[in-house]
């Protein structure tokens, strides 16, 4: 069965510090991968998605970036965090053939202080 992992679960970082969140998927190959953010009291905002290794599409201009160095690994990064980067970050995967359901990881709660 497929499993998606995210770490860390919780993170508190000062403004201006770097960020690296990692997501890995097991039990599937060549998935579409997604990074979302849920800010307090708001819905799910798509940040990045990837349909293959090295292929990244950005949805929202910001100081975040994403990379996909391996088929089942998706990394969200920032060189300098802002207060507004606080939120709940979710990674999701989708096997893009004849099914459109996305399956989410457990999420990372990021607080920028």
């Amino acid at each position, binding site marked *: 069965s497929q499993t998606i992992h995210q770490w860390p679960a919780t993170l508190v970082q000062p403004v201006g510090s770097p960020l690296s969140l990692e997501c890995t998927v097991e039990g599937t190959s060549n998935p*579409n991968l*997604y990074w979302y953010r849920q800010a307090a009291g*708001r*819905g*799910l905002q*798509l940040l990045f*998605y990837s*349909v293959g290794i090295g292929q990244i*599409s950005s*949805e929202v201009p910001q100081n975040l970036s994403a990379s996909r160095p391996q088929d089942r690994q998706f990394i969200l990064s920032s060189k300098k965090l802002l207060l507004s980067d606080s939120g*709940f970050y*979710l990674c*999701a995967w*989708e096997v*893009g053939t004849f099914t*459109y*359901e*996305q*399956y*989410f*990881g*457990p*999420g990372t*709660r990021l607080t920028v202080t």
Partner: protein
Amino acid sequence: DQQVKQNSPSLSVQEGRISILNCDYTNSMFDYFLWYKKYPAEGPTFLISISSIKDKNEDGRFTVFLNKSAKHLSLHIVPSQPGDSAVYFCAAKGSGSEKLVFGKGMKLTVNP
């Protein structure tokens, strides 16, 4: 421009009664619709979906209805249980797109 709208932020129902969660969309290119359930501090879990070629899909206590002419879908939960208390997100996908567009979510509270 919000393409998927969940206009009611919350709903409270009694255990055993029906819960009806509504969702409206504006993009006529959407052809697949999904409902997700989310507990606090957890990732959303997929509940049920419907293709635009159908107007109803049922899975146990959950039924999704799609009215394409009105660009409206709804999720019915019957009977509602306290464990159904969560935030529910409506999502839509367009033909040929890799992206889901989510609504802002609706908090359902089922009272014992």
